[in-house]
């Protein structure tokens, strides 16, 4: 029989206001095996913990039940306290009487009754607890960064700085991501390329960083400290090791009518291409959808002009496999498609553009060499209307429910840059709210209004109508003047909502990390663990976790790196001892458990057994690798004989809880 101590926490009034804690302590004190039952103001406080520690020693306790907040909150606190008093940490069970009782119920009588039942269930479980010892598993000292935008680059640089090898997997031919497409950055108005490209070069030259561009993660196996990842290196039909990036092939390629995705399709590139001048790696890539040699075997110009013989039309996708201790997700974002917002005429009129398209239109390396011209007729626009919140802050059926966060600031930036460069231009910004929480952000926005005379109008554009004279009628409401406006504009710029990259969802499934309904990765704790996923060893960097501007992205990238470094520094990590184990005497060797194990933790061994009639027989029995097992319990249900059981959540423990609740 266990000697159990029960400790009921008041949590100030959080619990005590709706649960009669004294009655709970009293009732649980009568449960079999309970030798001491006490209540206390704050069990998690130092003195509360000391109460537990002293009671363990004084009453020689073999089990502890704490009736308090969720085990997700303080289970570890009390486990550590128990361990400090010489009791195995896994002899502690928590009855959740705050989140699952006092906070949701109002009637003291029924809430107290429920708290007692929850306590009884925990006592019943502790009776069947057994001391567990955690094993250890080694940590592979290498990190994988998925995504090579500013988030991924910063994370990789920081991890490399700490002395660990890092691989960056980037799906595009070059790293750089969205920041490489941006012209200037707010609120300083410095050139994005000027601050990004040195980092790209630094990443490519750092011998600890290995860039797999034009590659994708194909498969992830394993667990924290020991992931095995398959990376698909897509065929770029150019030998990366030979190509010098001279660009001769891109000049000679006869297929010149390929929409240039780097310039948002506003101009064209060739079938063999280098996305932009500062690309890293600066290696050409052949687009198989347009290359005539790959499509019908007629051409081969690039191969002829290449002086180093880097062109390889026969190249195929390659899978490489590598082991990592930590994985950092930095898959970033994209602007949403605007097809369903007919009212803004985005699909009907070339002069209605998205903000990212405007970045390219204004960029010196963009389609117009940095002169802002209307895409339709290449004339200088005199009236430009900016529309904020296009697809952001919508009802779910109409767009994204969240604020995309960066639009207010980049719109102010655009407006200001235009007014600076072309003072003859009238700029209107239709806003719902101007959101500028950030260092020097509101000052920046005020400058746009006060210094640059940008017309900020509180209201939303209702309708955009392209007219036959090439102008665009913008119909909107001015809520403060309480009037409807018509603006005869030359260009309309839509601040499209941003959404996570489409590759994030399948990746999350591979990584077994959680996502919210918008496909942003969910952090382990919204406040206290913002750069970790709930899955150990997987970290989150940048906009894959939620909309972010560049400084925030970089800050989070470094934070994720710090967390990853903290893991990589360790030689081994303590495993979760709540793993499955097989009772060989009962195991049939039927392989059911092996088939459902998501980690391949179960293998079979032939063992000799003494039979009842004193003969011996060799039987095939399951054996669990405790370092690989993650403790999901799928095997325990697949096992018909009940040979497979789970530490900490055994069949008998769960049934004891069921019995206690149903009594």
């Amino acid at each position, binding site marked *: 029989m266990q000697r159990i101590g029960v400790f009921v926490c008041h949590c100030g009034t959080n619990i005590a206001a709706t649960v009669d804690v004294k009655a709970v302590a009293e009732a649980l004190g009568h449960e079999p095996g309970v030798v001491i039952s006490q209540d206390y103001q704050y069990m998690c406080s130092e003195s509360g913990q000391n109460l537990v520690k002293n009671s363990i020693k004084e009453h020689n306790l073999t089990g502890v039940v704490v009736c308090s907040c969720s085990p997700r909150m303080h289970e570890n606190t009390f486990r550590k306290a128990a361990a400090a008093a010489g009791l195995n940490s896994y002899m502690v069970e928590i009855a959740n009487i705050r989140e699952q009782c006092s906070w949701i119920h109002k009637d003291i009588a029924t809430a107290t009754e429920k708290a007692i039942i929850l306590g009884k269930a925990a006592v019943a479980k502790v009776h069947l607890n057994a001391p567990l010892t955690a094993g250890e598993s080694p940590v592979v000292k290498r990190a994988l960064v998925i995504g090579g935008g500013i988030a991924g680059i910063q994370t990789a640089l920081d991890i490399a700085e700490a002395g660990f090898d890092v691989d960056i997997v980037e799906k595009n031919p070059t790293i750089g991501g969205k920041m490489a497409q941006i012209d200037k950055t707010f609120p300083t108005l410095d050139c994005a390329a000027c601050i990004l490209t040195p980092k790209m070069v630094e990443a490519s030259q750092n011998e600890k960083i290995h860039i797999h561009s034009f590659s994708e993660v194909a498969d992830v196996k394993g667990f924290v400290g020991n992931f095995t990842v398959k990376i698909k290196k897509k065929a770029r039909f150019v030998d990366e090791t030979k190509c010098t990036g001279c660009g001769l092939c891109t000049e000679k390629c006869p297929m010149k009518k390929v929409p240039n995705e780097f310039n948002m399709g506003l101009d064209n590139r060739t079938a063999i291409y280098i996305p932009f001048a500062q690309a890293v790696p600066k290696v050409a890539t052949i687009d198989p959808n347009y290359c005539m040699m790959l499509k019908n075997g007629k051409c081969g110009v690039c191969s002829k002009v290449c002086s180093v013989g880097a062109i390889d039309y026969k190249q195929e996708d390659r899978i490489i496999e590598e082991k990592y201790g930590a994985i950092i997700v930095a898959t970033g974002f994209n602007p949403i498609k605007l097809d369903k917002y007919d*009212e803004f005429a985005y699909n009907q009129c070339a002069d209605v553009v998205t903000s990212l398209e405007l970045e390219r239109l204004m960029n010196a390396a963009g389609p117009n060499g940095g002169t802002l011209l209307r895409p339709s007729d290449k004339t200088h626009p005199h009236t430009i209307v900016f529309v904020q*919140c296009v697809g952001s*802050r*919508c*009802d779910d*059926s*109409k*767009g994204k429910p969240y604020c995309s966060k960066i639009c207010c600031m980049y719109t102010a930036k655009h407006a200001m840059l235009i007014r600076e460069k072309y003072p003859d231009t009238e700029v209107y910004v*239709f806003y*719902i709210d101007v959101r500028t929480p950030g260092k020097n952000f509101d000052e920046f926005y005020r400058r746009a209004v006060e210094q640059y005379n940008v017309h900020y109008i*509180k*209201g*939303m*554009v*209702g*309708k955009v109508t392209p007219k036959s004279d090439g102008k665009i009628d913008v*119909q*909107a*409401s*001015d*809520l403060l003047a*309480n009037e*409807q406006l018509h603006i005869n504009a030359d260009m309309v710029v839509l601040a499209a909502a941003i959404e996570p990259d489409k590759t994030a969802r399948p990746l999350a499934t591979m990584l077994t990390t959680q996502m919210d309904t918008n496909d942003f990765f969910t952090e382990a704790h919204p406040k206290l663990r913002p750069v970790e996923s709930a899955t150990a060893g997987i970290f989150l960097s940048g906009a894959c976790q939620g909309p972010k501007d560049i400084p925030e992205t970089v800050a989070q990238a470094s934070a994720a790196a710090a967390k990853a470094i903290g893991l990589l520094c360790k030689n081994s990590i303590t495993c979760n001892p709540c793993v499955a184990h097989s009772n060989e005497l009962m195991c049939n060797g039927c392989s059911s458990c092996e088939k459902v194990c998501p980690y391949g933790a179960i293998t079979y061994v032939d063992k000799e057994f003494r039979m009842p009639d004193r003969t011996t027989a060799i039987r095939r029995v399951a054996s669990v690798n405790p370092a690989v097992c993650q403790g999901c319990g799928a095997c325990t249900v697949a096992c018909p004989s009940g040979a497979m059981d789970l530490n900490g959540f055994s069949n008998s423990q769960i049934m004891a809880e069921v019995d206690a609740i149903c009594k």
Partner: protein
Amino acid sequence: MNKNLQEQIIRSSGVNVLKCMRCGKCSGTCPSYGEMEYHPHQFVYMVERGEIEPLLKSESLYKCLTCFACVERCPRNVEPAKVVEAVRLAAVRQQGNNHLTPAQIPDMLDDDLPQQAIVTAFRKYTK
């Protein structure tokens, strides 16, 4: 502030006026804007504040074309046109208020107006 009327309008329209984020897109998109005293976003806001009487008295009620452009465009699915319609219904339902008398009819007639429309309108706007 008229709580009863406010509740009636919210219930009969099925619109949650609290969803409105005051962007004004409804009014930005409204083709009858110029003829209305109170604009679509004001309907939503005034119902939220319980200021129903001015709306009931306003000609704006009958200027709404029920074209549903505001419903279509509202980013938050607030459906202002349904609020307008609900206020209109509330006006119609007010006991003893005949909005139309038989004597007024002859002046309104013109050759293009279908007979059925006259009958329907008469039914709708009288008690």
